[in-house]
């Protein structure tokens, strides 16, 4: 028990360390902007007064970090210590108060924009995952049961093609087929329940291919186990053997991949949301953030997506340990 508690504390400690690093990186990213962020946002024609006002309003007039290398009037650079009166500390204090700053363009609080968009992204990721699972389990089982046959080989090739086809190729092709040619579904937006179908299929395609391969190799592995022979010997139908016994054991690794892929889905959703104009975090990042050089929104979105990713991975890892006691022991 003591051992277990120590392990949990260690994991939480590491989680905090990782989150700290990610937040630090994101806060410091704005230093990468070539030239002056105020000029980049307001444009070359902004007056000096406007630039100063903008910097003061968004705290950009303050030093970036605890120390810096400012140039003196002669152009020589030396290390200067600023103490805690800097933007890095400002950002942390704000985050701990649940504040991610204000949009450079519209002055809206970034945290509110993120909360407005978050549900749409989660909805899309979950729908994509459900579609992927619904395709992968039956296809993987059929391929695994018929291992080495023509069916298996062709399904495996299809799965590899699914992994290689990027979403920005699949997505527009689906739009062409179902929106332009057949006119069954809307090409973009989020107004009707059916609007989620195309984005979810696009986002889930690669995952379903990965899962199919996993289910297949899992089924092959489990079919060779002793308990399968027992189940067959006692006269169970092949269907019951596969779906009641093999699949139950074979799904453990699949669950892990599923959890790990949730994060990948969140990152991949950036592209899918752009293709379909799906109003989630990705679209906020690409259109309002990057497109309009609103660096505060970019910071907020990167932070929100990566934190979700890290938490999802940690939870998956814990679930995996709980599902498979062998890992707990080692």
């Amino acid at each position, binding site marked *: 028990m003591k051992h277990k508690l120590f392990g949990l504390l260690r994991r939480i400690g*590491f989680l905090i*360390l*990782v989150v700290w*690093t*990610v937040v630090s990186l*994101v806060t410091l*990213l*704005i230093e*990468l*902007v*070539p030239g002056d962020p105020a000029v980049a946002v307001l444009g070359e024609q902004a007056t000096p007064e406007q630039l100063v006002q903008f910097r003061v309003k968004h705290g950009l007039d303050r030093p970036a970090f605890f120390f810096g290398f400012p140039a003196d009037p002669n152009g020589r650079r030396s290390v200067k210590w600023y103490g805690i009166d800097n933007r890095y500390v400002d950002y942390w204090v704000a985050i701990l108060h649940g504040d991610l700053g204000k949009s450079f363009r519209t002055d809206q609080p970034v945290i509110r924009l993120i909360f407005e968009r978050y549900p749409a992204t989660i909805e899309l990721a979950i729908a994509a995952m459900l579609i992927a699972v619904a395709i992968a389990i039956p296809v993987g089982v059929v391929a695994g049961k018929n291992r080495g046959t023509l069916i298996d080989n062709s399904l495996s*090739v299809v799965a*590899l*093609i699914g*992994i*290689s*086809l*990027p979403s*920005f*190729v699949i*997505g*527009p*092709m689906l*739009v*062409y087929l179902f*929106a*332009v040619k057949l006119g069954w579904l809307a*090409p973009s937006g989020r107004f009707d329940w059916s609007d989620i179908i195309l984005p979810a299929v696009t986002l889930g395609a690669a995952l379903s291919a990965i899962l199919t391969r996993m289910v297949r*190799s899992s089924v*092959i592995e489990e079919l060779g186990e002793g308990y399968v022979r027992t189940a067959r010997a006692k006269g169970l139908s092949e269907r019951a053997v596969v779906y009641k016994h093999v699949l139950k054991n074979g799904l453990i690794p699949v669950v892990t991949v599923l959890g790990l892929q949730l*994060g*990948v889905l*969140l*990152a*991949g959703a*950036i*592209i899918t949301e*752009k*293709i379909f104009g799906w109003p989630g975090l990705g679209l906020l*990042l*690409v259109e309002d*953030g*990057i*497109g309009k050089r609103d*660096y505060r929104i*970019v910071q907020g979105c*990167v932070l929100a*997506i*990566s934190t979700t*990713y*890290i938490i999802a*991975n940690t939870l998956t890892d814990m679930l995996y340990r709980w599902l498979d006691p062998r890992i707990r022991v080692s």
Partner: protein
Amino acid sequence: MNRLSIIGITIVIIFVLVAIFAPWLAHYDVGATNLAMRYMPPSAAHWFGTDATGRDIFSRVVFGARISLEVGVVVVVVSAFVGTMIGAIAGYYSGWVDSLLSGYLFNVFLAFPGLLLAIALVAFLGAGLNKLIFALCIIGWVGYARLIRAQVLKVREYDFVQAARALGAGDFRILLVHILPNAIQPLIVQASLGMAGAVLSEASLSFLGLGVPPPAPSWGVMIEEARDLSTLQAAPHALIFPGLAIALTVLAFNFIGDGLREYLDPRQRRR
């Protein structure tokens, strides 16, 4: 080698040849617009048809191979080199060096979704080919580092390493001459999958407007330009050909990577 990897190698050879001989293969200027010739279907004059501004799609796909190849090769070489160095140091010295590198640094990079980190870097640095390559190297090295660390941990226990040490060889010599040559075999698999990843990431970032700026004929840019509804309606081939080019290239590198992995790992071969 299995049949799929031979298909993969064939496609990659064609891809490399196309990239090298692009100026001889393409008959049209990749930037030359001709509104009178827009949305032309594939024909003898324009093998892949023309796009919304009348540019020849075949010429653009051919020159796009150059961008993909350049990004892929530079990203794989640089990240494999950096990753190998860091991974080798972590594996060879172990102790606190390893805790810092593999326990902290590797995990921080793995904790970040790669594409998101690349998007964030380019969003702040500004779009451009060099910045894109830089961002892809930043997310790419950790895969190689992790692999080489595990290999070095294994190889450094072998007798010939002990023998070299007994003969008085220094750390640098042991690592470079004795351990690394015996540890880099799996790197080839990773490099092949890395090429697929780099080609895909370049196209993704260019698609998002964060890579090579238009009118450069990056496959990602071409797809972005081909996906508005009027172009889809009038010229679906503007989407299909660059899409096929990306898919085939990525598929080929994945075939090779899978084949090599099976070849190098006899346990998988039996399955």
